[in-house]
């Protein structure tokens, strides 16, 4: 827990420093669809997990069309497998939760009036805060804590598009985990996170307030 808190504090401090020095800070929330990428083809029917996500961001302009962005989000990942055994439906929900920090570069690719679209790419690091399996079978649901079997840190790359209208932002983004989720990597083959998010954010232009005061 100390590690999670430390990561969050550092990221928030970085966001705040950037925000006050540059452009914008804000909050965002939305939907996140996640699934697993198995190195060996799975034999089960896996479906994505749809959940909400929320967090904060800070962005600042570096060049005319280029800006950088940092985000800290609480994201739930995982996937759901369904099947049938002994005449009963089986639903296995893998539930992972992370605090995720992203560092992104934004490139403006289109803009008209107050509407603009940026392409984004960057990296993310995530700290696992929860992991469990919910198994529903023959009318009973069992919950299992699997934190000890999931690595505490994840990381990878992120890419997407961000549309802006005034202070509002609409992000469509894919994150690809590059780290193997397994705490014990001597068993089985690798499993990685994949997710796709759709979020709405609202930003506050802190730099504008500061420059306004100077005038």
């Amino acid at each position, binding site marked *: 827990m100390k590690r999670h808190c430390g990561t969050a504090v550092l990221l928030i401090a970085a966001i705040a420093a950037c925000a006050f020095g540059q452009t914008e800070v804000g909050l965002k929330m939305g939907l996140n669809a996640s699934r697993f990428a198995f190195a060996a083809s799975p*034999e089960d029917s896996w479906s994505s997990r749809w959940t909400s996500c929320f967090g904060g961001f800070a962005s600042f302009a570096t060049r005319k069309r280029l800006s950088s962005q940092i985000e800290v989000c609480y994201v739930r990942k995982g996937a759901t*497998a*369904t099947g049938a*055994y002994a005449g009963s439906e089986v639903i296995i929900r*893998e539930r992972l939760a992370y605090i995720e920090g992203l560092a992104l570069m934004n490139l403006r690719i289109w803009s008209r009036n107050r509407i603009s679209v940026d392409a984004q790419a960057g990296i993310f690091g995530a700290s696992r805060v929860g992991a469990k399996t919910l198994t529903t079978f023959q009318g009973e649901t069992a919950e*299992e804590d699997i934190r000890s079997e999931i690595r505490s840190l994840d990381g990878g790359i992120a890419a997407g598009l961000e549309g802006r209208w005034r202070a509002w932002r609409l992000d469509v983004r894919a994150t690809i985990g590059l780290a193997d989720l397994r705490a*014990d990597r001597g068993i089985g083959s690798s*499993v990685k996170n994949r997710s796709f998010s759709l979020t709405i954010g609202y930003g506050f232009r802190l730099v504008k307030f500061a420059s306004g005061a100077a005038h």
Partner: protein
Amino acid sequence: MRKGSWPKRVVTGAALIALCRLAAFPMSNFDETSRLAALGKVWGVLKYHHPRVAAGKMDWDETLVAEIPKAKSAQTREEFGSVLDSLVRAAGNAAFLYGPRVVPKKGPEEPLFSWINDRDLIPPNIALKLALFLDTFAAWPNVYIAPASNAGNPDLSGEQPYADSSLPSEEYRLLSLFRYWNIIQYFYPSKHLIGRDWEEVLEEFIPKMIAASTSLDYHLAVSELTAAIHDSHAYCVSTTLSSYWGYYLPPFEAAYVEGRSVVTRIYSPYLVEAGWLRVGDVIAKADGIAIDSLLQNQGRYLSASNEAAWHRRLDLNVFRGSGEKLVLTIRRNGVEFDLPVTRIYARTWSEPAATTPPYAILEGNVGYIDMGVLKTADVNDCMAALAGTRAIIFDVRNYPLGTLYNLTDFLYPEPRPFYAYSYPDFSAPGRFLRQNGPSYGRSPNNPSYYRGKVVILANETTISHAEFTCMSLQAVPGAIVIGSQTQGADGNVSVLKLPGGIETCFTGLGIYYPDGRETQRIGILPDIEVRPTIQGLIDGRDEVLERALEHIRGGEK
């Protein structure tokens, strides 16, 4: 409907429904023994199917030991379910990390896993997980078991011996039972020949392991457990047992002849010269205890594949003791008398060296080979010397010295297999693979093969490699076996260590004739059954050999 018949119909209907329910669902209790049995079975499935357990990622024995008290004290199905859940969690429960599947495609097909469907003891989520592990994962590679490099029988050297104390704690005594039970359950090729429900054996021995309050109680309970598989290879050895049975061996050998214990061989020249003990003497008592009573008491602790083997083992065991002095009550010529004899300390005892030649030509141009004496290096000379005989008697009432492979070069007209074998499929515990052994004999054919009659002598002393030798000789065209049923334990031996300094073993391969006939428990069955008689022993005759000679001379088919 007749008036007034409805109550009867209702009662009958209810009884029928109840009966149907009883038939449809396995009966189960929720008592301590049932819970512990279920725990031991779940532990065993995970041991041989869970990839992390098989890889030795955790101390699986310790995990069981920690769960046993909780399983004992569980009062409800939910409490016991959480014990099993804890066991699964200890192994690792995130199945999606291990393999391609999280939902089992099919239920366990083998009847030996039917207990998984007992919902009184196994909650649905645990059953699902066990089914997944059974469906998806295998024991191989497994730190606890591997195929022995030379033959493919189980190599169990990965098991911890826990030999510090001869009386382990209750948890380790149960570990001993669960370890043994699961190995036999999944890796004993002749489990189908045990003759009783192996699951019943588990439930029978749980209270015995718990009740064992002394090291002797425990070691005898393990002996009784190993005897339950009815395998003549299943010796059970420990310091405690050696001390109990005694380090002193009788100066003679006895055999079960005409339903009595009879002296067949005397090792002490002093006894022979003095004439105090004679071959053919019937032993009625040992230290004042009737032999029948000794046989009764010791019988359940000695494992034997068949009755002949059981008597053989008993006759070797009942005259052992913890001191030199042994008073035999001998019955000779209708007179009963006590005879004190001096036992021999086991470590100073050795089988007297053979004084007979490995081979000879008997009267009537009949060759004779003592297979217990013939060495591999002597085979060429032996077969050259006996090439012109009308028949050869292969005496396998002993333990041969690995000569069968060389002998087949002289005896087989063309290469042929003489056995098939089965071994555990380590990737699917509970299943066994069967295949024919290789062909032996000169290739492509052997125009100068021995054309005389081949007669094999075998009896209850013939075990293991000796039975294998008999099978190789039986493959010779026209070969005939004379004597009596052999011990019925062929195939390489797997050795297992159990807590408390106990070592036991079992026949780790199944051995069959090429046509699929079993040999385990059955042994080699004679074509002509001949057993020694007491009078024959007194007269110094070898009646089995005599019958063989008679057969060769054409006196009997």
